[in-house]
C-alpha cells in the first residue's frame, strides 16, 4: 500500500528494517526517562487509596506493569476485552474508586467508543483512559496507528483530552487527571520517553497552553511529541535567521483558546503541528477557534495525511509524512518563501 506521500528522497544508507509494534521516537542519544506513566501512577497510589489500574491484556505495553508490581491488589487484568475494560472502569468509579484504564488508543477509540461514551462520559465519572501508540508512534501499520483518535474523541461531551509532549508532561499530568472531576483521555507515550520540557520554564497545567519560547517570525502551535519536534525545528531555524515561537497545547479539550489566539493575533507565520491526521485534531481546533472569534487567518497544518499510513520504521515514516525536524524546517522555510 502506498499513499503517494513519499515526496522526499529516502534516507541514505541501509534500509531501516523494523516495523515492530513497539518502537522509539526518541532521537539517538536523547535523554529519556523510563515508564513515566507507570511510575507516576504508582507514586500517586501511595497518597490516594482510591487509585486502581485496569488493562485489557496490555499492562506491559502501557507501562502499567510498574503499578502492578507496586500495587498488585489494585491492579485488575480484564483480558483482551476492551468493552469490558471500560464498562468495568465505569462500575469501579461508581463504587468510589479512581480507575486508570489502559489499552492502545486504537482499541479505546475504535472498539470501545460506545462504552466510554455512555458508561463513563455521560454520567461524568472520574475514569482516566490511557491510550498507547497515539498517532504515528508505531510502524506496525493501520491496525495499531491511532491517527484519528483525537478526531473520534473530540466530539464526546465531558471528555478531557491530553496529548503530552514528554516524560515531564506525563509525570505532572497523572495526578491532575486523577484530581479532575470527569473522564480524561491521555495519549500515552510509553517506554523510554524523552525528557525535554524540563529545559524550559514550564509546568503542566490541565487545560492550559504554554508559550515555551518567543519568536518574531513564526509561531508554532503544537501538542504531543510534535512539541519536541517544534522546539528542535525552532533551534534549527535560528541558524537560518528565522526567529520561531513555540506554543505547547497539551490539553486539546477543553482548549486554551485565550493563550493560543493571543499568540496568533499578529502577522507571524502560523503553523500547527500534531501527531494526528490533519482532520479533526489540533489544526481544526485552532482553525475553528480563530473563525469563531472573527480572527480568521491562514494557518499551515503540519500533521499526518488523511490516509491509512504505511508500515515501516518510525524514522522513515516520520520523514515520509513530514513529522521529522528536517521536514518541518523545510516546510517553514518554504512557507516563508
Amino acid at each position, binding site marked *: 500500500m502506498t499513499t503517494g506521500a513519499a515526496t522526499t528522497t529516502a534516507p541514505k544508507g541501509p534500509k531501516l528494517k523494523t516495523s515492530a509494534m513497539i518502537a522509539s521516537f526518541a532521537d539517538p542519544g536523547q535523554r529519556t526517562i523510563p515508564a513515566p506513566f507507570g511510575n507516576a501512577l504508582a507514586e500517586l497510589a501511595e497518597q490516594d487509596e482510591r487509585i*486502581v489500574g485496569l488493562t485489557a491484556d496490555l499492562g506491559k505495553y502501557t507501562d502499567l506493569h510498574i503499578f502492578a508490581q507496586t500495587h498488585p491488589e489494585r491492579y485488575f487484568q480484564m*483480558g483482551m476485552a476492551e*468493552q469490558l475494560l471500560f464498562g468495568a472502569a465505569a462500575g469501579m468509579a461508581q463504587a468510589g474508586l479512581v480507575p486508570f484504564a489502559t489499552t492502545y488508543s486504537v482499541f479505546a477509540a475504535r472498539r470501545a467508543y460506545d462504552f466510554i461514551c*455512555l458508561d463513563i462520559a455521560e454520567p461524568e465519572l472520574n475514569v482516566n483512559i490511557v491510550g498507547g501508540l497515539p498517532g504515528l508512534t508505531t510502524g506496525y501499520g493501520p491496525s495499531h496507528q491511532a491517527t484519528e483518535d483525537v478526531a473520534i474523541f473530540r466530539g464526546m461531551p465531558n471528555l478531557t483530552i491530553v496529548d503530552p509532549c514528554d516524560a515531564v508532561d506525563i509525570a505532572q499530568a497523572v495526578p491532575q487527571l486523577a484530581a479532575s472531576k470527569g473522564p480524561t483521555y491521555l495519549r500515552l507515550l510509553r517506554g523510554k520517553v524523552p525528557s525535554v520540557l524540563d529545559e524550559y520554564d514550564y509546568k503542566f497545567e490541565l487545560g492550559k497552553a504554554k508559550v515555551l519560547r518567543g519568536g518574531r517570525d513564526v509561531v508554532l502551535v503544537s501538542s504531543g511529541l510534535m512539541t519536541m519536534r517544534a522546539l528542535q525545528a525552532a533551534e534549527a531555524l535560528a541558524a537560518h535567521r528565522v526567529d520561531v515561537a513555540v506554543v505547547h497545547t497539551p490539553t486539546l479539550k477543553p482548549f486554551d483558546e485565550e493563550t493560543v489566539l493571543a499568540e496568533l493575533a499578529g502577522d507571524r507565520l502560523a503553523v500547527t503541528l500534531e501527531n494526528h491526521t490533519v482532520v479533526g485534531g489540533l489544526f481544526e481546533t485552532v482553525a475553528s477557534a480563530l473563525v469563531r472569534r472573527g480572527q480568521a487567518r491562514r494557518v499551515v497544518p503540519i500533521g499526518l495525511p488523511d490516509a491509512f499510513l504505511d508500515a515501516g520504521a518510525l524514522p522513515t515514516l516520520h520523514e515520509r509524512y513530514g513529522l521529522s525536524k528536517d521536514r518541518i524546517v523545510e516546510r517553514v522555510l518554504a512557507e516563508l518563501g
Partner: protein
Amino acid sequence: MKASRIAGVEDAAYRIRRYALGMGEVQGQGYVGQALGAADILAALYTDQLTFRPAEPEWEGRDRFLLSTGHYAIGLYAAFAEAGIVPVEELETYGSDDSRLPMSGMSTYTPGMEISGGSLGHGLTVAVGYALGLRARGNPARVVNFLSDGELDEGSTWEAAMGAAHHRLGRLTAVVDINALQADGPTAGVLRTEPVVEKWAACGWNVQRVDGNDVPALLAAFDAVAAQAADDGAPSVILCDTKVGRGVPLLEEREKAHFMRIEEHEWAICREQLDEGHRARTETRQEAAL
C-alpha cells in the same frame, strides 16, 4: 416457603403492572409488554431481595440493581413507586418533557437508577466493575444486573460473563429476561442464542432456569443464589422465561411485537383484565387458606 411471602410479591407485581399500564396510557405508548413480562422479577427484587433505603438512594450499603435494558425503565419506575423510591403520583410524568422518568432509563435523571441503559450489552460490563470495586472497598453489597435475552447477541455480554467468572465475583447476579423476542422479531429467528444454560455454565457461572412469571419459582431461585453467594465464588445467573404482556390476556394473545401498539380504547380493557386476574388469584388464595 411461606404463603404470605409469595402473596406479598404477587400483590406487588400486580401493582407494578397497574402502574406500568397507567404510564403507558398517559404516554399513549411505551414498552408495556416488557414491563408486564418482567413485573414478577422486579417485584421479587424490590419487595423481597434487594437491600436499600427508599429515601436515601445513594446509601453506601445498598444492593446495586443495574438495568441494562433502558427501555424496561417503565417497569422499573413502577417498581420504584412500589418500593417508595419515587412517588406514585410522579409516574404520570413518564416520558414527558423535564420528567425525571425518561422513556429510557438514565442514571443522571432518576433516583435509584444506577446506570444509563439503552445501548444494549453494557450493563453486565459495568456490573463486573461495580462488583470488583465494592469488593475492593470491603463493601458486601450485592450487584444485580437485569438483562434481556436480546442482549446475549452482544459480544460485550460474553466479555463480561468471562470476566465475572475469572474474577470470581460471587456477589454478582445476572437476571436474564428471556421473552424470546427482540426488535426484528422472535429471538430464534434473529440470532439464535440457545442453548443459554450451557453457554452461561461454560463461562463458569452458577445457572438456574425458571419460569420468570412464577413467583414461588423465582423466590426459590433467588434463595438458592443467596445460599451460594460467597465473596470469591462463582457468579450466578437466573435465566427467566417470561411472557410479553403477562397478566393481560389481550396483550398476551396479541401478535408479539417489541414495541406493542395499544389503541386508545384498549387501555381500559387491559386494566380490567389485569384486575380480574388479580381478583381471581386473591380468591383462590382465600379459599386455600380456609
